[in-house]
């Protein structure tokens, strides 16, 4: 395999965007091309989950490649649920590593605010098992809630730990101009005060409103290039050094140990193995905190902390921007937002920004190795990426 580098990156603000979906995909792609200082690409991947259902548009990549005047370059959509973004990066990685292409543009985009929140939740719920889950009214919040209850029972995690994730990530988002939520919150306000039950009602017990990410529109893009092309680009050299992906049962109740997220464990291990690195080598990570519980559990399953001890590391401040292993300095899905198809690409965008040392007020101190976990389904399709800053 050839080495694969990040040539350029781009992102939109995550919020409600009143633009056509194709523009939400094309804009960050333009930014990434400008960032890399290149005009030509061999192939475009667009990561998106809901264009057909939510936006009444199919074959999005064909629209975007033409809008960017990149024809006759190849183009295709990667739809892989909430893991679409990192799955598209994996496809781009494979294309460059194999020698098939030298420059692959990956753009993730979603426009979910075109429908109301309940319809958006129902749209995402269509990834659940149609007969064994969806018909009952199972949604992603209900999966996360049932999982959280088991975790609380087994590992002594409390609502306070979940609230600590929300506070950390929304405060990190305050430092990110592209983040959806610019709303500082406190444990007092969402848990302890008399108003907390009104401010922060249950969504699916034991999860509350502030345990869930917002519904966002947005796009993010990353250009992957070969070694030869990377040499011609005058930007810090960041290598996509490890790519891992694993799947698990579609119906969540079929998993042998219901508090495990095996696909996270396996995808992370694969990514680290390819990179020749270990979890303890990571300096900054973006984990898929669609719900606060997920940041804690993923931080264990990828190998940063022992199983059942992620909440202890959180309590000690280890995952804060100035901690020993900062997690979600961008604000994560919780604070930055979660336009589903864009999320995996946006995680990579943040890690590249951090490794370049260009993250401004939320810059982690001198990171060399960065890691992302993009969690699809309720943990049934997970992609983990490891990025390394090289000399220059």
């Amino acid at each position, binding site marked *: 395999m050839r080495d694969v580098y990040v040539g350029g990156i781009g992102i939109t603000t995550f919020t409600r965007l009143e633009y056509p979906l194709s523009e939400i995909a094309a804009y960050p792609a333009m930014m990434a091309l400008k960032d890399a200082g290149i005009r030509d690409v061999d192939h475009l991947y667009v990561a998106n989950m809901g264009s057909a259902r939510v936006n009444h548009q199919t074959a999005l990549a064909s629209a975007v490649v033409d809008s960017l005047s990149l024809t006759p370059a190849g183009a295709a959509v990667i739809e892989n649920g909430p893991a679409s973004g990192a799955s598209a990066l994996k496809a781009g990685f494979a294309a460059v590593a194999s020698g098939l292409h030298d420059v692959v543009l990956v753009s993730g985009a979603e426009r979910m605010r075109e429908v109301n*929140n*309940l*319809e958006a*939740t*129902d749209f995402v*719920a269509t990834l659940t*098992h149609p*007969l*064994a*889950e969806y*018909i*009952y*009214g*199972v*949604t992603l*919040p*209900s999966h996360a*809630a*049932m*999982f959280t*209850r*088991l975790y609380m*029972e087994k590992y002594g995690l409390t609502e306070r730990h979940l609230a600590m994730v929300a506070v950390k990530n929304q405060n990190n988002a305050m430092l990110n101009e592209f983040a959806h939520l610019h709303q500082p919150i406190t444990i007092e306000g969402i848990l302890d005060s008399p108003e907390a039950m009104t401010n922060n*009602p*249950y*969504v*699916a*017990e*034991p*999860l509350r409103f502030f345990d869930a990410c917002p519904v966002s529109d947005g796009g993010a893009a990353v250009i992957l290039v070969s070694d030869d092309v990377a040499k011609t680009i005058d930007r810090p050299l960041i290598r996509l050094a490890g790519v891992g992906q694993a799947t698990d049962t579609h*119906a*969540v*109740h*079929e998993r042998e140990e*219901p508090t495990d997220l095996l696909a996270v464990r396996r995808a992370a291990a694969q990514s680290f193995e390819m990179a020749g690195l270990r979890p303890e080598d990571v300096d900054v990570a973006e984990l898929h905190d669609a719900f606060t519980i997920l940041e804690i559990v993923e931080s264990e399953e990828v190998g940063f902390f022992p199983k059942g001890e992620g909440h202890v590391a959180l309590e000690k401040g280890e995952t804060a921007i100035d901690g020993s292993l900062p997690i979600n300095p961008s604000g994560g899905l919780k604070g930055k937002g979660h336009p589903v198809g864009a999320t995996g690409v946006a995680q990579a965008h943040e890690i590249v920004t951090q490794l370049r040392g260009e993250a401004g007020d939320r810059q982690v101190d001198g990171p060399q190795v960065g890691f992302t976990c993009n969690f699809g389904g309720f943990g049934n399709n997970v992609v983990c990426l490891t990025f390394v800053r090289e000399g220059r």
Partner: protein
Amino acid sequence: MIRDIYAYRCRKCGRLHYPFRMVCKECRQNDFFDFDLVPLPKTGKLLTFTKVYNLPAEFEVPTLGLGIVELENGLRITGQLEVDDPRIGMAVRGEVKPVRKSAYDTFYGMVFRAG
């Protein structure tokens, strides 16, 4: 009328599955539809649960109970829960009833009560 939900027993190795899958997770030796249908037991214990407040529009109720139940034969099933004060490990009994209605269809599934 008593309705059932079925588990699928692999004809090659005997492993039970719910829901249906094309190839047995245990032996992976099946030809097309190599399974026998076995009605799922109706009783078991509650493994985990939630009460959901924000429901898709077709659910004309303010909240909905959902749970995962470990049935007496060891298989698990996700279902609706009509229990006032659910607790992990409590005994529950299921009944197959309408669980979701769309404009065109009524879907049947397992609804659990204490017992």
